[in-house]
């Protein structure tokens, strides 16, 4: 049961799962936004159509090697992060084990920024000033939200003396609790940071179409944009699964996983629908106020 072929097919299944779930979540988000704006909205499979269309478009120009590499970096980061995240609880469904034994939270936190930096390089190569502006906004904002996020992660690691995700999940299973109750401040800080992570409004300063013409991707069309969208979907799944694994006790089966991730996903979506957009420095300082405070509380909570 442990052949390379088996592992590869398991990995492929995980990727497909992440892609599908992420895509549907994106569609549902569009639907939710539409409903809140009293519209009908696109069908929830709309994102699939968009991606397939983008892949089927011609791409007859490029601005240089990095333009190819940028989206590839992004998808690499998403898929690799996915490989290192335990999708299901305990032994779960053995197909989804992938490589989650060989990385821990710190690794994951770093792996997750790999993509944005790679994407930024691709955006830089195109030479569009809007791309560069978008990138600077994104990176600046990242400095903002990573801090409370890492604080809450550190709080958890400190509290339970393990840095591995499976370790944290096992603790939740043994003690039959969720870490969001064990260390509520960490959960609050992490959720507030998650608002920024998803780049949904009010933190959509990176792509802000009306300001910087969709920012980093302004020169990316066709297959590049398709790859970016797929990467984004997988990455959304990665983030949500990570949060579920760490704070909500993981999931025993796929249904539970979908329910929990979706519940979590609703937070940034609903927060975003009713919020206008922040300026960049406001976005940064937003994360350095309450989220940071909760992060400090979380670490204090963990260390006493």
């Amino acid at each position, binding site marked *: 049961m442990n052949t390379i072929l088996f592992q590869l097919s398991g990995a492929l299944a995980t990727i497909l799962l992440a892609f599908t779930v992420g895509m549907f979540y994106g569609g549902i988000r*569009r639907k939710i936004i*539409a409903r809140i*704006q*009293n*519209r*009908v*909205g*696109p*069908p929830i499979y*709309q994102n699939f*159509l*968009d991606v*397939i*269309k983008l892949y*089927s*478009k*011609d*791409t*007859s*120009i490029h601005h240089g090697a990095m333009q190819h590499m940028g989206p590839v970096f992004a998808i690499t980061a998403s898929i690799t992060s996915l490989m290192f995240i335990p999708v299901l609880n305990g032994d779960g469904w053995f197909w989804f084990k992938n490589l989650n034994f060989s990385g821990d939270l710190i690794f994951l936190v770093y792996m997750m920024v790999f993509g944005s930096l790679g994407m930024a390089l691709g955006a830089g190569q195109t030479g569009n000033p809007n791309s560069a502006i978008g990138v600077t906004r994104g990176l600046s904002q990242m400095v903002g939200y990573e801090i409370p996020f890492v604080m809450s992660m550190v709080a958890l690691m400190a509290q339970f003396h393990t840095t591995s995700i499976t370790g944290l999940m096992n603790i939740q299973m043994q003690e039959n609790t969720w870490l969001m109750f064990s260390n509520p401040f960490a959960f609050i800080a992490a959720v507030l940071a998650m608002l920024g992570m998803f780049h949904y409004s009010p933190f959509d300063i990176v792509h802000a*179409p009306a300001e910087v*013409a*969709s920012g980093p*991707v*302004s*020169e*990316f*069309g*066709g297959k590049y*944009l398709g790859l970016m969208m797929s990467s984004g979907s997988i990455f959304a799944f990665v983030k949500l699964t990570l949060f579920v694994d760490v704070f909500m006790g993981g999931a025993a089966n796929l249904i539970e996983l979908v329910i929990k991730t979706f519940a979590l996903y609703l937070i940034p979506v609903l927060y975003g629908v009713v919020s206008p957009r922040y300026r960049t420095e406001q976005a940064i300082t937003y994360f350095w106020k309450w989220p940071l405070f909760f992060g400090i509380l979380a670490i204090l909570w963990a260390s006493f």
Partner: protein
Amino acid sequence: MYNDNNAQTIVEYIKNFTRKNSLFMLAYGTGCGAIELPATLTSRYDAERLGVRGAATPRQADLLLITGYLSTKTLKRVIRVYEQMQDPKYVIGFGSCTINGGMYWDSYNTIKLLDKYIPVDVYINGCMPRPESVIAGFKELQRLIAEGKADGATKYKENLDWYRENQKKVLKNWPLVEYNW
């Protein structure tokens, strides 16, 4: 799946299906018709249910929407934007002005017939067209795409010399780079 007029392979059918249902629209909103677009896209008419959504840059866009009259000055930009878009790409001429100059029919620097300069797939007439007709226009375009008949880009490539000639007639200082894909 197969019809008499236009036999498509299954791959082409899927492609066309997704293309038709996912139109990234770049609205060139210099004309007065642009005022109808907000209504078209927001709650009351909600074009997004057809898969139409805005694109920020020509690189991402499938559909160029020319909302109203074009002066020679803006024509230059429109051509540039059109040429920067990636295949397959479609153009909707919006309002009477793109058809015959509309109320500017005797203006010295307004483009009278847009089709002479860039290939227009669908015209929506009216001065200005109501959102209902805009949506009808989108539907028409979707029909054309599904049937594989929205081939303005191909026509533009095939008849590039003719288009260039027309374009150069109105654009005195020719600033455009060569279009060679």
